[in-house]
């Protein structure tokens, strides 16, 4: 579909056989990042005691993420606030920018979400090894398992651990792509049914747009909260 196509903008850049051209995906990532910066800049500019609207939104996004980290990963994860906040805001803004007509949804491409999830996964794994050394491997050996079953259980645990980045990335990608495809399909119905029967799918499209905005927020939230949960596993090792 046209809305998921990646095409390059400007000249082709090749660095050592790697295509580094600026594409529409890069453009919309830049736009999302710029919007986040603008949003946070406007929200923190005035710092009045009685907050203005934008200041209120900025401050509540801060408390929202801070509370989420505190609830799921505990106070020891507080130093990872900047990382989680950045991740949350980037996914949220990328999803929301994608909701605008004629825009490109960065998160509807699995490679983008998979890279984000891999950053989390690799980072958390390294953190676990730094924090606990080889005891971190104890994550794969649950307590109270008979020795005979242990090899099988360890393999299952390793598969379960490796499935984390896959489930994290596929969830975000699938939700965004499915939602946009559905909107497109219903939009197509409106055109093909014409003036007589097109009103019903039009109504569905409106309702689906609302649902998509909810999903856009929800997926950013789920992405951030799962990062917190994985962080919690690495920081406070217990089974």
């Amino acid at each position, binding site marked *: 579909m046209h809305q998921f196509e990646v095409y390059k903008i400007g000249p082709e850049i090749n660095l050592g056989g790697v295509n580094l051209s600026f594409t529409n995906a890069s453009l919309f990532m830049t736009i999302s990042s710029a919007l986040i910066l603008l949003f946070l800049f406007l929200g923190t500019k005035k710092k009045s005691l009685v907050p203005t609207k934008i200041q209120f939104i900025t401050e509540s996004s801060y408390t929202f993420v801070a509370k989420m980290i505190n609830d799921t990963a505990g106070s020891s994860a507080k130093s990872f606030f900047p990382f989680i906040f950045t991740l949350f805001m980037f996914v949220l803004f990328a999803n929301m920018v994608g909701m605008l007509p004629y825009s490109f949804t960065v998160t509807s491409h699995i490679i983008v979400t998979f890279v984000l999830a891999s950053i989390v996964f690799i980072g958390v794994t390294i953190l676990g090894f730094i924090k606990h050394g080889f005891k971190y491997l104890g994550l794969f050996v649950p307590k109270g398992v008979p020795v005979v079953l242990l090899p099988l259980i360890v393999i299952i645990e390793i598969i379960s651990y490796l*499935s984390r980045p896959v489930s994290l990335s596929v969830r975000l990608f699938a939700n965004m792509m499915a939602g946009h495809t559905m909107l497109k399909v219903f939009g197509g119905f409106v055109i093909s049914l014409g003036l007589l029967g097109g009103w019903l799918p039009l109504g569905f499209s409106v309702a689906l747009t609302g649902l998509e905005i909810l999903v856009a927020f*929800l997926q950013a939230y789920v992405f951030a909260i799962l990062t917190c949960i994985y962080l919690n596993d690495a920081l406070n090792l217990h089974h």
Partner: protein
Amino acid sequence: MKKIKEIATRLEIAKKNIKNTQKNKEGSNAASLGKALKISTELVAAVVVGSIIGFLLDGWFDTKPLLTISFFIMGVAAGMLNVFRSAKKMHNNRYKN
């Protein structure tokens, strides 16, 4: 002095109210939908990862369908384990407060 005390008690009451409203918020619809979406992919991801590992190992050891099948089954088990764990976590969160 009296005024400060008054403010202190009022603050305490306000804080209590905040806590109460926060407790009610936790079971909201959006959060439940998020959890539902979370669990559904967990099962699939583990199966996919297990099958891919099995397929790669098959390529290395030249034991064509054997390891793919067994790792597929273990992937299903890992998926079940994931779903079970998240469900348990939700249950614990719900009844902790």
